[in-house]
C-alpha cells in the first residue's frame, strides 16, 4: 500500500521533471553556476586556510637572551621554555653560531660586523610552538608572557606577516559566508520559481487531486522531491564545474615556472566536504520547493 503510493509520488516527480524539461535544465544549470560561485570562494578559503596552517608550521619564534648572561641563568630560561606546553621544540643558538650563520647567509655584509670588533649578535633560543599555539593571537600572548622571563632580552617573530595572513583568511571567510548566503538565497529563489512553473503547468491536476480528497502532503511530495532533485543535481554539477576549473588552474600554475611548487599546495574539497555540499544543495532545493508549496493543497479553496 505504502510502496504503491511512494511509487506513484516518485513517478509524479519524474513526470514533473520530464514535463518541464527545458525549465528543469535551465534551473539545474543556473543553480549549478550559482553554487559554483559560492564554491570558488569556499575553495579559496579552504586553500588559504591550509596554506596559512602550513606556513604557521614553519614559523619560528626567536627568544633572544641578554648578553653576558651566566650559563646557569640561560639554563634556567631553557628549563622554563621546555616546561611550557605551548613549546613543541627549541634549539639554542650561541652568539658564535649566530655570527657564523650570519656570515654564511650574508657573506658580503660580514665585513660590517668585523668592523665592530666584537660580536654584536645575541644568543637565542629558536622555538617552534605547538600546533594549537600558532594562531596570531596565541603567538602574541605567548611572546608577551615569555618576554617577562628574567634574562630574556627580546622575543621576535614575524608578527605582522602572521597577523596579515590571519586577517586575509578572516576576510575570505566573511566574504564566503556573505556570498554563500546571498547566492544560496538566489538558488532557493531559482528552484522556487521552477517549482512554481511546474505547479502552474499542473494546476488542473492539483485541483483534481484536492477535489478527490488527496491530503496536502500527497499533493506536495512530488514537488518537494523535484526541488530536492534540482538542488542535488545543481550542487553535483557545480562540483564537476569546480573540479574542472580547479584542475585547469592547477595545470596553468604548474606550467608557470615562477610559481614552481605552488600547485602541489593546492587542494580540492575532500570527499566529506563534497558530500556536505551536495547535501546543502539538496536542502536548499527542498527549501525552494517548500516556499512554493506553502499554500498548495490546503483544504479550503
Amino acid at each position, binding site marked *: 500500500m505504502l510502496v504503491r503510493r511512494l511509487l506513484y509520488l516518485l513517478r509524479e516527480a519524474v*513526470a514533473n521533471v520530464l514535463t518541464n524539461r527545458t525549465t528543469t535544465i535551465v534551473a539545474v544549470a543556473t543553480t549549478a553556476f550559482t553554487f559554483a560561485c559560492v564554491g570558488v570562494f569556499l575553495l579559496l578559503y579552504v586553500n588559504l586556510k591550509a596554506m596559512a596552517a602550513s606556513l604557521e608550521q614553519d614559523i619560528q619564534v626567536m627568544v633572544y637572551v641578554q648578553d653576558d648572561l651566566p650559563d646557569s641563568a640561560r639554563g634556567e630560561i631553557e628549563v622554563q621554555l621546555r616546561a611550557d606546553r605551548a613549546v613543541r621544540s627549541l634549539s639554542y643558538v650561541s652568539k658564535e653560531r649566530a655570527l657564523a650563520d650570519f656570515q654564511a647567509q650574508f657573506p658580503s655584509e660580514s665585513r660590517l660586523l668585523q668592523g665592530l670588533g666584537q660580536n654584536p649578535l645575541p644568543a637565542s633560543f629558536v622555538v617552534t610552538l605547538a600546533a594549537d599555539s600558532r594562531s596570531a593571537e596565541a603567538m602574541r600572548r605567548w611572546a608577551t608572557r615569555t618576554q617577562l622571563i628574567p634574562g630574556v632580552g627580546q622575543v621576535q617573530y614575524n608578527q605582522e606577516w602572521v597577523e596579515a595572513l590571519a586577517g586575509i583568511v578572516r576576510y575570505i571567510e566573511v566574504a564566503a559566508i556573505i556570498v554563500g548566503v546571498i547566492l544560496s538565497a538566489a538558488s532557493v529563489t531559482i528552484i522556487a520559481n521552477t517549482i512554481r512553473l511546474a505547479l502552474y503547468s499542473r494546476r488542473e491536476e492539483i485541483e483534481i487531486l484536492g477535489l478527490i480528497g*488527496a491530503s496536502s502532503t500527497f499533493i506536495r511530495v512530488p514537488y518537494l522531491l523535484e526541488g530536492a532533485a534540482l538542488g542535488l543535481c545543481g550542487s553535483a554539477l557545480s562540483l564537476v564545474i569546480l573540479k574542472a576549473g580547479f584542475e585547469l588552474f592547477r595545470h596553468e600554475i604548474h606550467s608557470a615556472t615562477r610559481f614552481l611548487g605552488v600547485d602541489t599546495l593546492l587542494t580540492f574539497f575532500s570527499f566529506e566536504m563534497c558530500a556536505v555540499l551536495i547535501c546543502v544543495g539538496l536542502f536548499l532545493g527542498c527549501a525552494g520547493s517548500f516556499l512554493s508549496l506553502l499554500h498548495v493543497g490546503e483544504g479550503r479553496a
Partner: protein
Amino acid sequence: MIQLFHVSKYYDRRPALSDVTLEIEKGEFVLLMGPSGAGKSTLLKLLIGAERPEEGQILIQGRSLSKLRAWEIPVLRRKVGIVLQDFRLLPKKTVFDNVSLPLLVQGASTPDIRRKVAEALRSVGLDHKKDLFPSGLSTGEQQRVCIARAIVNGPIMLLADEPTGNLDPDLTSEIIELFKAINARGTTIIVATHDPNVLAQVNRRVITLDHGKVVSREQVCS
C-alpha cells in the same frame, strides 16, 4: 444527512447564497435548478468544504463543516464523489489510472484498486476502455469515466455540477440513467443543472435557486 441552516455566502459583498435552509435525506436524489449565477455551484462548493459560509451552519452526517480542521477536509472529500461539467480527467493518464486516483490517495491496496476500478468501469460500461487515454474517448465516455472516478470509492453522496452541460440529449439521458442506477444503490445524489432535459427525466425532488435564494422546494415532478 445534509442540513443547511440559514447559510449565506458572499463574493465581494455580493450574496452568492442568501439565508439558505434545507435538508437532504440519505439516499435522496435532488436536483438543484436555477439559472447561471443562481448559487448552485457555490452550494456544492460549500458541501465539499472548498468554501466557508459567512453565516449559518452546514451539517453533514451531523458534523458541522465549519468546525472541520484543514486536515479533515480531504477526509470529508473521500466520502463525496464529484462530477463536473468539464470532466477534469488527467489527459496523460489512462482511464484506469484516472479512475484509480481516489483509491490511491486513500492508500488502498493494489488488489483492491484493481477490483474496485474494474467494478466502477463496468457500472459505467467502459471496462473495455481502461487502457485508453481520455483523448481517445468521446465526450459521453469521458463523462462516464468521470462518474466512475466519483463512485469508485463508494461515496456516501455524489455531487454533480452541470454534468450534462457538454452533452447532447441522448448522452444526457445516458448519464441520468447512470445517476439513477447509482442512487438506487443508496448513494445520495445532488445534481446542479439548468438543463430542462435533466428535469424532464428525473422525477425527484427539485430545489430551485435564484440570486442565491431558495425560491421553490419540495417540488416533485411526476
